[in-house]
């Protein structure tokens, strides 16, 4: 499974954060742990230009995460090139 992991950009509905969480980072982590038992899979938590995070996921985990409440979209990472 580790070999199949790819980076995904996960968009979250910030206003949908359950009251039990103190901050969004905590909520993002809990959402990720709900679908993946692998440790330290989150790369970045975004706050200014995107509400969400990037994480290393298997395709199944990405699919499962897309169904978690508060998750808007789970998009695979893209590679860009210098011009």
């Amino acid at each position, binding site marked *: 499974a580790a070999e199949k992991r790819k980076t995904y950009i996960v968009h979250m509905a910030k206003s949908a954060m359950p009251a039990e969480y103190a901050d969004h980072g905590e909520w993002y982590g809990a959402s990720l742990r709900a679908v993946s038992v692998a440790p330290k899979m989150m*790369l970045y938590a975004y706050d*200014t230009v995107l509400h969400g995070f990037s994480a290393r996921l298997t395709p199944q985990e990405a699919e499962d995460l897309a169904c978690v409440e508060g998750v*808007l*979209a789970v998009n695979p*990472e*893209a590679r*860009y*090139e210098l011009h």
Partner: protein
Amino acid sequence: TTRTPEFLGIAGAGGGAQGMFPQSGTAADVVVGVLDTGVWPESRSYDDAGLAEVPSFWKGQCMAGAGFNSSACNRKLVGARFFNKGYEAAMGPMDTDRESRSPRDDDGHGTHTSSTAAGAPVPDASLFGFASGTARGMAPRARVAVYKVCWLGGCFSSDILAGMDAAVADGCGVLSLSLGGGAADYSRDSVAIGAFAAMEQNVLVSCSAGNSGPGSSTLSNVAPWITTVGAGTLDRDFPAYVVLGNGKNYTGVSLYSGKPLPSTPLPIIYAANASSSTAGNLCMPGTLTPEKVAGKIVICDRGVSARVQKGFVVRDAGAAGMVLSNTAANGQELVADAHLLPAAGVGEREGMAIKSYVASDPNPTATIMVAGTQVDVHPSPVVAAFSSRGPNMVTPEILKPDIIAPGVNILAAWTGKAGPTGLAADTRRVGFNIISGTSMSCPHVSGLAALLRSAHPEWSPAAVRSALMTTAYATYSGGSPLLDAATGATGTPFDYGAGHVDPSRAVDPGLVYDISDAEYLDFLCALKYSTTMIAAVARSRDFGCAENRTYSVGSLNYPSFSVTFSTANGDGGESSAAATVTHTRTLTNVGGAGTYKVSTSVSGAAAQGVAVAVEPTELAFTSAGEKKSYTVRFTSRSQPSGTSGFGRLVWSDGKHSVASPIAFTWT
């Protein structure tokens, strides 16, 4: 950048546009964030002499890392961060012998782009004596913050988003991204997503259009909230002469500065005849037969591999020199490189003539003479053959690129970690390098945008872009249209958008096409984006498109027009029926009182049949900030699918000329 300030008309006595733009240390201080390969902070282009204290709004950091101290920043280079988690997660741990886990630029590209945008003036800059002069960024008094998001293995969107996230939070006023990916809808394009939020937070985002020209529909970074920049030439060349044994002399370009070829002619051979490979003409690694090329000049064709790598391959095979011939893909465009051996790049026509001589003469000979730097070359600018072209494949109703700027043979600062060719075998080290690409044109516009933001802090990012676009020129001083290097013929708005940037006019555009955040959301509704897709682009705001409202892409207050006719536009659905497409626009007065009158023109056989009706034809403004709307109806009979035509719509009060390009396509 030893030439572009003069070429752009902003070379003031004190190092840049003194008369038009305010000084740093005022409320108009602007920080340009450059997302790229990092920075070489020791470059003289980051000298902070004469700059006031770092503005109080600035929240950026100077991150320490391998070979990079937090003390590397100063009042010019106000921030330096790096984002590598996505890169290393995808590619494995980086090779720290080859790249630095820090903001340090191991490549040179990021140092080049950031110094182009806002580098300090550096007298006596040159590359081996070529392009000598004072190198300076377009906004020499703006601050620079670098966000290293590109690594030897590429630029990964998780890192790019992290860089944009930090740059906006830090307080950058302009972001410059000389990178791109494939065409994707905006909800899946990280640069478009990051740029939307940046725009909402009053940050102008300037991106390169891409180097996939001259083919059509090859653009990157086409979201309407991004300023998309194509590339044109300067009025500067680096001539070299290929003198053949038959006495004929062909002009090309070269930045070679080492030991010259002997004055006596050497044998010359076409690489295709010195290789057992079917693609031997391309001088790919391992394809040349050393016995056949030793001591000779080798003719290679452009394509597939990097131009400088071909030079290395030819030198490695034991040849004495190289003639690098353009093919139809590049036409007559000459891009100079600091090759490792005596070499000249020549246009397609010259290349064919030289190859013809080599094929017909039993003992062909030649020599190459490098002639230095030439300025006042005309015509200029010419659209670079490599510059990506429209139509916009993601949203054909938005004309892209927006504008062109200098992007061919640009001198700017370079890393101390790599030679000017970037090849591992190149052990030369230079303070400045000359390279080409829309990567180079983008930071020109980023710097100019910083100047405009500094001069007009109250203008939105859309207003700044509008000013740059509506004052751009699409004809030479004699009135003839800008040319395209790929064909040698007249270019079109699909090649140059509104035209070539003209900053001295952009500072006083008279009127601007402003666009609010809400209007961009309406645009997404017009594209029929779902609530989820809109939330992905515009973050998780509570926004939904109104069911009882009709949204139109043509209503986006864009400074250009892209009109797509299809049978669906016609009132009867028949292919011969006349179709009418309506666009509405609102102009905001950013000057004094004035009455503007409209004029329209069309070019090309297909466009001659298009009727353009503007209502009203006159707009009177009495005060700054006043807004007036107008409607344009474009009516045309059906044309064969794939046909295109062009035009221009201009509002003028006699002093200002507020010009919009028009592109018509029939589908």
